[in-house]
């Protein structure tokens, strides 16, 4: 059974990924978050030992090395890492507090990079691994009020491409998935008018769901993903088509 670590695994896209991987029967999914949500606890009860929760505040990067080692000690080699945790603070740059900007960049950029450093080292020692970074279509399009979030998601795309070059020789793939607007708590702040506008602009006339994103992650982790690396897969129901 292959171990996969999913950050931000207690809700939204992360929970959908953790749930899907556990249900596939091929993976032992470890959902990482600061707190276990009720939804995750329920999913763990249904998953029959294939889904676990481990608490970690990834913003505290001094503790990341120890956390990565503790997961390996407990579960064995980590085959997959899904960097999904992130926050989506919105607001005009001109009026966003510096502390909010710093918190967002820390959690969405610094934390996944440091966690990847320690997990990728283990994968290098093992000679295999899959890394999937959750980006966003906002990394390459534009959206009013999301400039800082967009910068963080574009950072993950640059990180993905260069890291893929670095670790390819040792059998590790690195890819990004760029969801469009998906119905999660992160996008609850959209009002009904914005929502209708986004739906109206998408080729398929609806928003993708969290499970659409999860199925792409499962594909990249699986046999079909073995020759895919350094790329971005967009899952946006045609919003950017």
């Amino acid at each position: 059974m292959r171990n996969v670590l999913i950050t931000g695994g207690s809700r939204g896209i992360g929970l959908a990924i953790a749930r899907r991987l556990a249900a596939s029967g091929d993976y032992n999914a470890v959902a990482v978050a600061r707190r276990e949500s009720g939804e995750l606890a329920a999913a763990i009860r249904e998953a029959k030992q294939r889904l676990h929760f481990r608490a970690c505040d990834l913003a505290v990067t001094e503790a990341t090395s120890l956390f990565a080692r503790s997961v390996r000690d407990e579960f064995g080699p980590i085959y997959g890492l899904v960097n999904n945790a992130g926050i989506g603070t919105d607001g005009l740059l001109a009026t966003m507090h510096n502390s909010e900007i710093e918190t967002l960049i820390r959690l969405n950029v610094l934390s996944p990079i440091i966690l990847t450093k320690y997990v990728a080292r283990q994968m290098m020692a093992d000679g295999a691994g899959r890394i999937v970074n959750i980006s966003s279509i906002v990394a390459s399009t534009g959206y009013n009020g999301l400039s800082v979030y967009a910068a963080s998601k574009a950072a993950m795309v640059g990180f993905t491409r260069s890291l893929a070059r670095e670790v390819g020789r040792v059998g590790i793939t690195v890819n990004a998935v760029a969801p469009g607007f998906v119905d999660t708590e992160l996008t609850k702040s959209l009002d009904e008018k914005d929502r209708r506008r986004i739906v109206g602009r998408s080729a398929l006339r609806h928003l993708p769901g969290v499970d659409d994103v999860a199925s792409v992650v499962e594909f990249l982790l699986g046999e079909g993903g073995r020759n895919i690396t350094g790329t971005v897969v967009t899952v946006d129901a045609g919003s950017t088509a």
Partner: protein
Amino acid sequence: MSVKSKIFAAMKQIAEEQKVTLPPLEDDLPLNETGFDSLAFAILVARLEDELGVDPFTVAEDAAFPSTLGEFVRAYENVPA
């Protein structure tokens, strides 16, 4: 097995996997003449962390990396507990 011989054993293993021919391993051998590239060193540090339970370069306060094999070995021998 001493720390030094564990490090040398790991290096020989990686040299074989990466198809690198190692020169004789002496203390004053510059690391950039070992035939190891940065990726091979990254694999070495990761394997040694597994085996010895320590990564002296994460623990260290500065980001300097040793320049000779002897210094590299001493970094592992002198790591604070």
